[in-house]
């Protein structure tokens, strides 16, 4: 898939030969995101209009109580401090960004009057700035008007390192200035192809200046509004018990007509995913449940009760196996998996390719993840006719055996292959999570057949995903041969995501394992291409580059993608809710309604 092919596809969309949805899906299959796909169309002048959600109620209120269940409970309600999606989702009840991403990757205005484009003058031709027009007449929950000052304040608040906001990544490099009371301009330090970051989506929620002004910087934790939000959203804050429940009630002065439908909202937290699914699908105690990390078999059985259904939203998370490029078993300068070493057998491409052949993705998909993890829509495996040679996969034990035989790896006395005294014995670690352990077992069995012995190791999630510099069990240390987890492409732009294979990002003791290149792969061509893509303003060209980057990763078996992990939610039968895998789960909360 090169730039030319992409242009062809875009032409197909323009002439109606390919639907927009199919195009988006293909781009996701190639490792891009829906928002980027939509941008490509817009850049090429193909009309992009978000399909409006069919909102039926003709007046606000009257819907009774909406009860939603998050099995991880929200712990705080300031979007700038949100740790994880649960807090972002809860903050979104009360706070809103300028615009959000819908499931097709369209920008949908929320607090913005319109989406900036080159045509309406919002976007600078050279990609150096974006000008947002704010909606007029929006009021904070306490009656104060929402203005450009609030936006500028959010930028100041978040970009101040002393505030320690998690949103700092979106704000620290830009400059935000007020044009007039309802217009702001975001200036980028260099031409930026992906401009819709600050003030947009999960990281873009805006807090009121008049509430937070005194609590900027070091005093940020003392703000009373951290736990009692005053926002612009469809629901007014009623009550919050950290780690348990959030209550909201209808905002009578909401800035969108006839919304919201429900009189109150309750977001309950805690418990486990299976019982959350039961509460929605089987007993109907709740209307909506988030992140159904449950085996599909169980979900299907629960759905059979008829009280609700499971909705699968494409998103950019990939469950993948990483193959270590460095030697995890010998310390060099007090560091295992030091970038100065080479892995004893994974440095042999034949072994890498053998592993790639031994991962039975079809079975993992079919018997473990089902609808909740797709092997075919993999971030490197394009669907249908677009699949190219280097982005297809196969499961073939015999071929793997032949590959290893040819490369000189001969079975030893114990049936484990070896060459020059190096045994094909791999320690394969992941976090503790039932589907992951089952995947490990499936991979282990196939490897055993091919003469590779696998030692399964599982680490409790709170340790595995921590950044403890001293603990060897964390994933950035990668002190074993293989490891598996899901990386989340939370950013609507894949550029950030592809950083994780850059040489400058190598994880090592020197940078306290904060580098993102955990597989410790180094490739000068990759680095060069990435640097080019980072300043390419032609969206289509850039997309082709990103796809090429993807292909390099896969061709070299740097990682073995297993399944994509869409965002899976359970929703009551009579509830209508616009949902998106590219924004918070509650991004369209104002439009949620129930059939009377």
């Amino acid at each position, binding site marked *: 898939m090169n730039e030319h092919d992409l242009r062809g596809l875009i032409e197909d969309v323009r002439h109606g030969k390919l639907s927009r949805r199919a195009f988006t899906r293909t781009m996701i299959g190639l490792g891009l995101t829906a928002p980027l796909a939509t941008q490509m169309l817009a850049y090429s002048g193909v009309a992009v209009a978000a399909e409006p959600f069919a909102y039926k109620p003709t007046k606000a209120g009257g819907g009774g109580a909406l009860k939603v269940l998050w099995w991880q409970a929200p712990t705080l309600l300031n979007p700038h401090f949100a*740790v994880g999606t649960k807090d972002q989702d809860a903050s979104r009840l009360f706070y809103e960004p300028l615009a959000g991403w819908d499931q097709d990757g369209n920008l949908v205005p929320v607090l913005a009057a319109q989406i900036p484009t080159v045509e309406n003058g919002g976007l600078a031709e050279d990609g150096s700035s974006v000008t947002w027009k704010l909606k007029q007449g929006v009021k904070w929950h306490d009656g104060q008007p929402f203005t450009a000052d609030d936006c500028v304040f959010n930028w100041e608040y978040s970009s101040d390192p002393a505030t320690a906001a998690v949103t700092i990544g979106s704000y620290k490099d830009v400059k935000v200035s007020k044009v007039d009371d309802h217009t702001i301009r975001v200036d980028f330090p260099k031409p930026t192809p992906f401009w819709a970051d600050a003030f947009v989506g999960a990281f873009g929620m805006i807090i009121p200046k008049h509430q937070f002004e005194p609590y900027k910087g070091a005093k940020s934790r003392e703000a009373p509004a951290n736990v009692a939000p005053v926002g612009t959203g469809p629901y007014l804050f009623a009550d919050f018990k*950290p780690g348990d429940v959030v209550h909201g009630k209808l905002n009578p002065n909401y800035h969108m007509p006839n919304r919201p439908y429900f009189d109150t909202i309750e977001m309950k937290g*805690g418990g486990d995913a299976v*019982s959350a699914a039961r*509460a929605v699908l089987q007993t109907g105690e709740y209307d909506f449940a988030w992140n159904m990390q449950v085996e599909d078999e169980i979900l299907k059985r629960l759905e059979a009760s008829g009280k609700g259904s499971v909705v699968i939203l494409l998103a950019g998370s990939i469950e993948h196996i990483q193959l270590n490029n460095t030697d995890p078993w010998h310390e060099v300068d007090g560091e295992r998996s030091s970038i100065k070493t080479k892995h004893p057998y994974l440095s042999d491409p034949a072994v890498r390719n053998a592993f790639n052949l031994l991962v039975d993705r079809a079975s993992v998909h079919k018997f473990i993840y089902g609808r909740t993890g797709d092997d075919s829509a993999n971030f490197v495996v394009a669907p249908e006719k677009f699949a190219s040679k280097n982005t297809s996969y196969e499961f073939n034990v015999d071929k793997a055996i032949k590959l290893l035989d040819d490369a000189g790896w001969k079975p030893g006395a114990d049936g484990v292959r070896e060459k020059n005294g190096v045994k094909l014995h791999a320690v394969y670690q992941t976090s503790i999570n039932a589907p992951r352990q089952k995947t490990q077992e499936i991979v282990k069995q196939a490897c055993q057949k091919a003469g590779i012995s696998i030692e399964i190791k599982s680490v409790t999630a709170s340790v595995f995903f921590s950044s403890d510099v001293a603990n060897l069990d964390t994933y950035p240390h990668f002190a074993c041969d293989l490891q598996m987890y899901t990386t989340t492409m939370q950013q609507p732009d894949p550029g950030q995501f592809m950083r994780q294979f850059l040489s400058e990002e190598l994880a090592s003791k020197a940078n*306290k394992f904060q580098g993102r290149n955990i597989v410790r792969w180094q490739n000068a061509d990759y680095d060069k291409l990435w640097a080019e893509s980072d300043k390419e303003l032609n969206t289509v060209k850039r997309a082709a580059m990103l796809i090429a980057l993807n292909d390099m990763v896969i061709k070299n078996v740097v990682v073995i993608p297993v399944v994509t992990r869409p965002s899976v939610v359970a929703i009551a039968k009579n509830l209508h809710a616009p949902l998106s895998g590219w924004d918070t789960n509650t991004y369209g909360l104002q439009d949620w309604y129930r059939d009377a």
Partner: protein
Amino acid sequence: MSRYLIRRLLIAIPSLLGISVVLFTVLALAPGDPFGELATNPAIPPEVQAALRAKFGMDDPIMMRYLHWLTAMLHGDWGFSFVSRVDVDTLILQRLPTTLAVIGASQVLALLIALPVGVYAATRPYSIFDQVASTFALIGFSLPTFFTGIVLILVFSVSLNWLPFVFRADLAATGLQWWWEEIRQSIMPVAVLGLFQGATWTRFVRSAVLDVIRLDYVTTARSKGLPERGVVLKHIVRNALIPVVTLIALQMPIVFGGAIVTEQIFRIPGIGSLLISAIQANDTPVIMAVTFVFACLVILFNLIADLLYGWLDPRISYR
């Protein structure tokens, strides 16, 4: 006795200090860190994490952090949650009523089962009643609460649809309706915990009563022609209570501490679930506060038990 009491109370202070030092050290050394989740998110630069660590004083040496914690605690400041960014005492107070009600009720239920069943079974050892009671008790503690909880949910919530299985600490109803709802949602968690605890205690009560029931003074009391009821209650049970009191004293701090598994299954916002989520998130101030209060209660109830021994058996001397 009062000298003993004073001595024990005086010992309690250094004991608590010692325990707090050990707790703090364990928590500081245990793997994991509160901002780990941020590190997995490519959109958040590592500096944010570093800034947060500095802000919450996590890069200071352990000794300094302990002294900070201790001085703050002495001033009545329980600390500040890393994760929720609110004061720890607010978090604990929000959850205390639910914990006390649910766990307390289950402990009462356990006692109501264990005392009569255990005593009755022991007075007729190897009778049909004893065998049945023993079997149920053994099943009771062979099956973990994560399992019984799910079975109850499947039967009473899913199949019969009688009881809700998501516990709500803030019922909207008032008056009688409130009580009705509260009881309906408490039945299953209280039963799961109470039956498990009751099964264990039944075995202990039976064993304790069996130890006493064959002693000579019981035979004497019987041969004096005292009514059986009186013999059992006055002569046997009182003397059999020492192990029972020990066990109850062991269990009482749990009423504050909560029951992690059961709270998780029924989504009860109790202190147990606060503790476990704090541990998973490595929210040290919360863990420290909860375990420290827990340690105080352990020491307090141990002392109460020691004093009760003397009351139950006046021959026990305190020297």
